[in-house]
């Protein structure tokens, strides 16, 4: 070989340049919204008296009186905490840091993750049919559930409403018994999570672990292991951190699980099981629309897929009776043979063909399609950061998420009822030359679900955070117009959906304004 020393130098330089490129940069991306330790802005000491959503009252589930802080049993519990605190591992400290960000916020994040994980439609079989997810066999392909937007709206609402009722009940018993947290009773116990004047019995962390895990296990049965581990970690963190003793935790867990059972029983009979309907049922809807001289929606997927949850409009709402759902249904969309429809189809085509990069970014920002946490999840994401920044205590955070998600669930019920009443075709069905810059949802067009969800969410968030109302309105409008940019909705879908969402939110808001919370 004819290496000279100068060549050796060049070679070394080249090799080190490569090595720099290989190892020179840290690219790690953290998965979570950062949640600092929650120092709640208020105790909400009256929350035990706030109106319940499903429970008959705060004493529907009884919590027995705790033993005195001077009892031998309680002192032994304190000793157990001290012993645990002397030997904390890094993993235990990490768990404490994680849960100190707030139980309601953490469970909300986790619910969004579960929705994103399970929000995938079944793949077609080789014969062109689609298997249905099976709640009795949730691990199979397709997984159960298909956490599409209506399913997700319902799931977020059950989790949030159950947490809200459970925490109000917990607050009732906390202030009834007034047993302080162990770090307050014994100053040799370190407060490794923020400890307030909030009485510790029953433990709010344990209540949240019990109610959240049992509700989520019912909604996402294939995630049983992860849900169970997370709930156990939350209870352990409450113990290790000096915020709750074993009896605080045990009472909280029992209360949370008992209240979860009430909500899970409601979910079992709320109409979700039959929301998929049968082929004959949804084909009858198509026939009725055709008989009126209108073009009926058809699936544009290949092979054609049954419409998404055609009878979700019959699922029980939180704040609206079935007659309210029908009464609030938007007026008919433009006839598929009308000039207005032709004009709106051509508006969609022109929009998509002339789409700017900025408009495409808006379509992507709000797409929240398959594989994501859905539009209701997006609004939870928005709310979570505001709840964090406002340092809402657990019961206050639960109230915000509960009303937000109840309104979006009712929006899903109302929107789906209207979609399957009108069975209106998508723009790309009216004009096959319209290609969509985002995925085309597999259900009828009118009214726009994004617009309905977003109007309902913006109305609730404007009630909770009035200073930000203009921002929420702008987001709502952007979410709505994003569907025109995406080539999947006409302007009338968006206008009608927004007005519909506003009307639906008034039901939740009248409940919120009269629930006794200051």
């Amino acid at each position, binding site marked *: 070989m*004819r290496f000279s020393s100068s060549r050796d130098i060049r070679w070394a330089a080249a090799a080190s340049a490569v090595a720099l490129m290989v190892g020179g940069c840290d690219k790690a991306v953290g998965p979570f919204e950062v949640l600092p330790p929650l120092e709640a802005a208020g105790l909400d000491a009256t929350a035990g008296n706030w109106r319940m959503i499903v429970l008959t009252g705060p004493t529907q589930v009884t919590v027995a009186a705790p033993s005195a802080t001077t009892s031998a049993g309680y002192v032994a519990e304190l000793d157990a905490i001290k012993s645990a605190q002397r030997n904390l591992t890094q993993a235990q400290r990490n768990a404490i840091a994680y849960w100190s960000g707030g139980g309601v916020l953490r469970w909300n994040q986790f619910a969004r993750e579960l929705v994103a994980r399970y929000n995938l439609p079944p793949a077609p079989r080789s014969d062109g049919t689609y298997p249905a997810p099976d709640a009795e066999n949730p691990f199979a392909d397709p997984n159960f559930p298909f956490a599409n937007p209506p399913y997700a709206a319902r799931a977020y609402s059950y989790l949030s409403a159950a947490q809200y009722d459970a925490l109000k009940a917990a607050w009732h018993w906390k202030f009834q018994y007034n047993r302080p947290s162990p770090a307050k009773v014994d100053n040799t116990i370190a407060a490794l999570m923020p400890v307030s004047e909030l009485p510790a019995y029953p433990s709010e962390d344990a209540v949240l672990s019990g109610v959240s895990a049992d509700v989520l296990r019912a909604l996402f049965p294939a995630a049983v292991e992860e849900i169970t581990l997370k709930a156990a970690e939350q209870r352990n963190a409450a113990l290790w951190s000096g915020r709750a003793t074993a009896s605080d935790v045990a009472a909280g867990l029992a209360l949370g699980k008992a209240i979860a059972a009430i909500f899970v029983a409601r979910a079992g009979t709320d109409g979700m099981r039959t929301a998929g309907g049968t082929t004959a049922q949804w084909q009858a809807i198509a026939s009725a629309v055709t008989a009126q001289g209108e073009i009926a929606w058809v699936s544009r997927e290949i092979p054609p897929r049954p419409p998404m949850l055609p009878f979700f409009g019959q699922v029980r709402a939180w704040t609206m009776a079935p007659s309210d759902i029908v009464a609030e249904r938007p007026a008919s969309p433009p006839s598929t043979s009308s000039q207005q429809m032709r004009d709106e189809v051509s508006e969609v085509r022109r929009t998509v063909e002339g789409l700017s990069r900025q408009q495409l970014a808006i379509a992507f920002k709000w797409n929240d399609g398959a*594989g994501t946490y859905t539009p209701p999840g997006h609004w939870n994401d928005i709310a979570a950061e505001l709840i964090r920044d406002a340092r809402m205590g657990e019961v206050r955070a639960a109230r915000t998420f509960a009303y937000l998600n109840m309104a979006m669930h009712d929006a899903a019920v109302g929107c789906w009822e209207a979609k399957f009443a009108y069975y209106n075709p998508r723009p790309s069905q009216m004009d096959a030359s319209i*290609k969509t810059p985002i995925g085309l949802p597999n259900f009828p067009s009118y009214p726009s679900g994004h617009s309905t969800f977003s109007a309902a969410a913006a109305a609730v968030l404007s009630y909770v955070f009035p200073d930000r109302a203009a921002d929420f309105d702008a987001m709502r409008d952007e979410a709505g117009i994003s569907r025109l940019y995406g080539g999947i909705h006409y302007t009338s879908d968006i206008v009608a959906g927004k007005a519909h969402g506003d009307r639906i939110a008034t039901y939740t808001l009248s409940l919120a304004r009269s629930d006794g919370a200051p």
Partner: protein
Amino acid sequence: MVCAAGVSTLASQAVDDGDLLPRRMLSTSVVYARDSWDQYWEGTLKRQNGNIGTLTTQSVTWVSGYGVTDRLSVTAVLPYVWTEASQGTLHGLRGVQDLTVGAKYRLLTEDTRHGAISAFVGAAASLPMSDYTPDFLPLSIGTGGGRAAGRLTLAFQSNAWWFARASAAYTWCSNVTLDRAAYYTDGQLYMTNEVAMPNVVDYSLSAGVTRGRWRIPVTLVQQRTLGGGDIRRQDMPFVSDRMDFTRIDAAVMYALPKGLSVRVGAGHVLAGRNVGQSTTVSSGLSYAIQF
């Protein structure tokens, strides 16, 4: 469909071909390529998708090279790319993709009884030249983000009519930014618009014939992405997926008079993960002038 896809299919051919331009020679090429697939690997599951049909990616690529010295050449590569699905409603995308600038240096040459062995080092960097979205795969025109690659090539040119070559490269991929606030990949929800892109290695072995005005190489290329998730069941591909493939390429190059040369090529993916089983055909025209 890969972090390095933009460069690995086109630019790397320019970067790893082992050929240096003579000193003060400027070469400019225009290459048209058409890549299509109707089957892809969803993770490791090979399947078709009625909502895609056949996915076709076409490109016109400008390639320029210049011989700085007899042992150092520099290259620049810029493709214009457009995509289309034959079925379903999804809209194709089009635009100027990534500019790659590279340099290739002949480190040493050793003459043997049968021919010459040479070793080359190369480095390349690329950046998107338009604000295209990487978040609409398989219809996105690229994966966005910047890349930097280092390559080592060993080449043997026989005294007779054949040659052989082995090459390996490591490509560092910068993080990319999406137009949305959260995404799910590799078993986890990420509540950020920033995506950590896995780095990529590729290896190639080629052999071929050089006779008179003809040059005919056949190349086996393997790409391995060092991380990333699999496409979930019935999900869309994601920009940071683990995109691996083994592909065979063949080309025929013919030197015309007056500095012109033509090239036709074909490639086929033999095995893959989170990529389409694509077949590529390409043709190009080059013009070289000596200053």
